[in-house]
C-alpha cells in the first residue's frame, strides 16, 4: 500500500516521495536486494511527475538506500557501516554547549534583491527577491555573534510574518513550513569585517572575525544561506562527532 502525497504540505513533493520509499525500505516492506518499480510505475503510484521521482531516487541513492545497476535497474541496497563521522552536535545554525546564555536581537527582517554574488550561492536568478534577516546574539549583554541569513523569497514567503525572537529559522522551516533541511555545508575562515558587520559587533571596521558560510539544503535546493560572524570572545563553537553506523 502506498502512502498518499500531501499536496497541501509545503514540503517538496520529491522529499515526500523520498520519505515514503525510505520508510518502506527501513521497515523491510521493500526488502534488500529487490528491484524497485520502474520510474513510470512510480509516477503512476504516487501521481507525480517523472522529475519528482528522479529527484527522490537520486536522494535515496545518495543516502545509500538504493543502488543503480547499469542496464538492470535500481535495487534496494544494504546500507554499510560508514567510515565517516556522524556529527552529534545539534543539527542547527549554531553550535554551543549551552545556547541559553545568548540573548537574540533581530536587527533586520526585510526583502531585497541579491547582491555581491548571493544569487550564485543560493542558485537563483539575480532578479529574484530574497528575504534578508540579520540577527545579533549577545552573551552577558555583549555582542558575540552576528548572523546574516538569505532565503529565496519563493521558498518561504510567510517567514516575514513569523516571530523570529522565539524560534530558530531551522525550527520554523521544519516545524512550521514543512521544509526539511537534508544537508548543511559549512565553510569556516577568518575574514575582515565590513561596517555593516563590525558595527553591530562593537568592533572596528576591518577587524578580523571567524566567519562561517553555511548553506542549508532541502534536497538539491539551497533554502537558506547563513553568514555567521563570530567575535573573538570567551565563547567557543562546539562540534561533536562520533563514528557509528549510519
Amino acid at each position, binding site marked *: 500500500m502506498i502512502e498518499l502525497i500531501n499536496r497541501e504540505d509545503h514540503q517538496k513533493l520529491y522529499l515526500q516521495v523520498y520519505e515514503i520509499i525510505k520508510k518502506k525500505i527501513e521497515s523491510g516492506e521493500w526488502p534488500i536486494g529487490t528491484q524497485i518499480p520502474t520510474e513510470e510505475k512510480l509516477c503512476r503510484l504516487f501521481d507525480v511527475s517523472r522529475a519528482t521521482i528522479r529527484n527522490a531516487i537520486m536522494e535515496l541513492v545518495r543516502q545509500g538506500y538504493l543502488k543503480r545497476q547499469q542496464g538492470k535497474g535500481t535495487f534496494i541496497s544494504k546500507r554499510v557501516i560508514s567510515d565517516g563521522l556522524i556529527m552529534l552536535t545539534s543539527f542547527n545554525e549554531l553550535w554551543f554547549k549551552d545556547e541559553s546564555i545568548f540573548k537574540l536581537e533581530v*536587527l*533586520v*527582517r*526585510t*526583502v*531585497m*534583491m541579491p*547582491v555581491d554574488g548571493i544569487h550564485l550561492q543560493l542558485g537563483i536568478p*539575480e*532578479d529574484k*527577491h530574497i528575504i*534578508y534577516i*540579520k540577527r545579533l546574539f549577545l552573551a552577558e549583554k555583549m555582542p558575540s555573534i552576528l548572523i546574516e541569513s538569505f532565503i529565496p*523569497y519563493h521558498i518561504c514567503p510567510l517567514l*516575514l510574518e513569523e516571530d523570529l525572537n522565539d524560534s530558530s529559522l531551522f525550527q520554523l522551516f521544519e516545524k512550521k513550513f514543512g521544509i526539511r533541511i537534508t544537508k548543511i555545508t559549512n565553510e569556516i575562515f577568518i575574514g575582515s569585517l565590513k561596517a*555593516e558587520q563590525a558595527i553591530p559587533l562593537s568592533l572596528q571596521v576591518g577587524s578580523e572575525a571567524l566567519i562561517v558560510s553555511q548553506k542549508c539544503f532541502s534536497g538539491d535546493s539551497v533554502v537558506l544561506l547563513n553568514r555567521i560572524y563570530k567575535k573573538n570572545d570567551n565563547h567557543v563553537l562546539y562540534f561533536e562527532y562520533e563514528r557509528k553506523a549510519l
Partner: protein
Amino acid sequence: MSESKVVKDLMVGIFEYPHIPYWFTINQAIRIVKVSFINTKKFPEPLAILVFDEKYNLMGTLTLKDILIGLEPKFLKSTPKAQVPEENESGLSIIWDSLFTKEIKQLAEKQVRDIMVPAKYFVEPNDPITKAAYMMLHHDLILLPVLEGKKKFVGLIRMIEIFDAISNELMKE
C-alpha cells in the same frame, strides 16, 4: 465612473518591482536596474525600485532619474538664481569625459536613502480610485503604495491603470 471600482481592483503586486534596503549604495542600485530591467528587457512603467527599512516598511521609491540626479557632479547642479540661457546648454556635451571622475565614483557610494523620493502618501485597498487618481495627480506621484490597515504594504497603483480606468469610463457609450 463605476462606484464599485476601488483601489484593490487596479493595484499591481509589489513583487513586480525590485526591493532594496535604504543602506544599499547607488552603485548597488545601478546593478539592480541593469539586472532587473535592462538585461531582461523588462521595462515596467514606471521604471522604479522600492526602498525599504529594516522592518520591511516602505520608505520610498527610486527612479532612473533619481539615480542620475544622485550622480550629478556639483558643478552641474543648477542654483535657483542661475538663469542659464537655453543655447548655452549645448556646451554640456563637451563635459562627457569629465563626468567619470573620482567625484562621481564617490557619489555612487552614497546610500539610496539620500536620493530616493520618500513615500508620504498611501491609499487603502478599499479606497475609491478617484482618491488614488487625485493623490497621484496633485502630488505628482509615479507610484502610489497601497497599505492594508495602514500598515501592511500590499500593492501599488500606477498611472497607467488609473488612466485606463478613467478613459474606459469616458469612452463608454
